[in-house]
């Protein structure tokens, strides 16, 4: 907990939180990391295999092959989300399924399914980016910041 947050708490509250946190089971961080490494690695290896397949059999080059590769992973992820399997795998795999592109596809598909009951416009349309929105917002923003830095450095005579 941050110190700023701690300051707002009364001594009794702080005492209780300390007491409670000793009795709460902790996230098994090491095991979770190992699982995430395994599953994330498997997904990435699958992606590598797909890229190789598209390059060998379908005449794509190394850059263009990434498009159909990502598409296949996204379709698989959305399919598993729709069949109600993805969240169970994710409870085991943690960051292993959240970090690769499959995780991003899952955030969009799950939100779209969940809010179908509120209609296509306000429900699916309005909520599909509920979880993935921050990724896009900050992805775009930081890409902008980085390119700005690059331009400035270039103008100043850097590399």
């Amino acid at each position, binding site marked *: 907990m941050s110190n700023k947050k701690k300051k707002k708490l009364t001594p009794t509250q702080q005492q*209780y939180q300390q007491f*409670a946190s000793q009795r*709460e089971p902790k996230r098994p961080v090491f095991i979770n990391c190992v699982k995430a490494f395994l599953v994330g690695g498997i997904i990435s290896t699958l992606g590598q295999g797909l890229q190789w397949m598209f390059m060998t059999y379908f005449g794509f080059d190394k850059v263009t092959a990434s498009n159909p590769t990502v598409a296949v992973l996204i379709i698989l992820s959305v399919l598993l989300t729709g069949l109600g399997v993805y969240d169970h795998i994710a*409870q085991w795999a943690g960051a292993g399924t959240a970090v690769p592109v499959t995780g991003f596809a899952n955030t969009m598909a*799950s*939100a779209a399914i969940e809010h179908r009951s509120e209609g296509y416009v306000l429900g699916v349309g309005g909520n599909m980016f509920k979880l993935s929105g921050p990724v896009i917002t900050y992805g775009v923003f930081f890409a902008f910041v980085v390119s700005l830095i690059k331009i400035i450095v270039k103008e100043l005579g850097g590399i």
Partner: protein
Amino acid sequence: MLKGHQTWVFENRPVIIATSAVGGPFESKGALAEDFDILHKDMWLGQDSFEKAEKKLLEEACEIAIKKAGIKKEDVNIFLSGDLLNQIISSSFTARTLAVPYIGLFGACSSSMEGLSVAALLVESKAADCVLAATSSHNAAAEKQFRYPTEYGAQKPPTSQWTVTGAGAAIITRQGEGPRITSATIGRVIDMGISDPFNMGAAMAPAAVDTIQAHFRDLGRDPSYYDFIATGDLGKVGHGITEELLKKHGLNIPPDIFTDCGMIIYKEEQPVLAGASGCGCSATVTYGHLMRRMREGELKKILIAATGALMSPMSYQQKESIPCIAHAVSIEM
């Protein structure tokens, strides 16, 4: 009537003449499956949204309780109900179906005992002859509102709990056969500054401790008076903390009579992490399981302290901590 600071003693001992419990597919695989009146195989209950499914659960629970009591719905003077969805829609929409006088309650997961204590008070004070008290929760509807979409792959920490898909209802009258409500302790809101919605047990434990202590202090009773004491939905983590805190404050409840509804509703092998939660947890366990054991004579005097976390999805995004409450009701045969 009022005894001590916050406890009502009911001299006329209102009777719970009928109770009902309805559950979902996950509950049908649970440890108390036999104590439910209806168990649905389908999370959606044939409806096109989770919210409608929850309303159906509550409607069914009310209908069964009315039928078991052998009364007509016109005989119900007041319907008391609460749930977890925004603006307690499950309760209000059920009240629309029932078309009886209605008071909506919000005590989050403590709504079950909040409803039961107010029902007993209304019957005791002759404001009503027959009160229907009910509450419901739905796993997917609650997840959708309070956390993430159900199919979203987020890893839940070991302190998180599983919201019960279920509804429970009870009919309380002045005379009749059945377990009697003898007292109720209304809780204070306690906030120990915990703001993690995946750690409700630890957030709610101090509220349970406060109310249980107040109950025994107000009535000058010893825990040995009861042969069963249960908290509402603290789960393993919260219940452990409650036990220790009570001991620290000099209230020794023997572990064999002290448990938590959220710990007994599911089987050990079900993947619920710390246990069950939701309005439906204490409601179905009390109205289904415990009432059956009382009617069969296995339990004579029980105390249920239903716990509730009074936060909203917005309040925790704004980094507010979780205020909690617990209401305790004693039921005797």
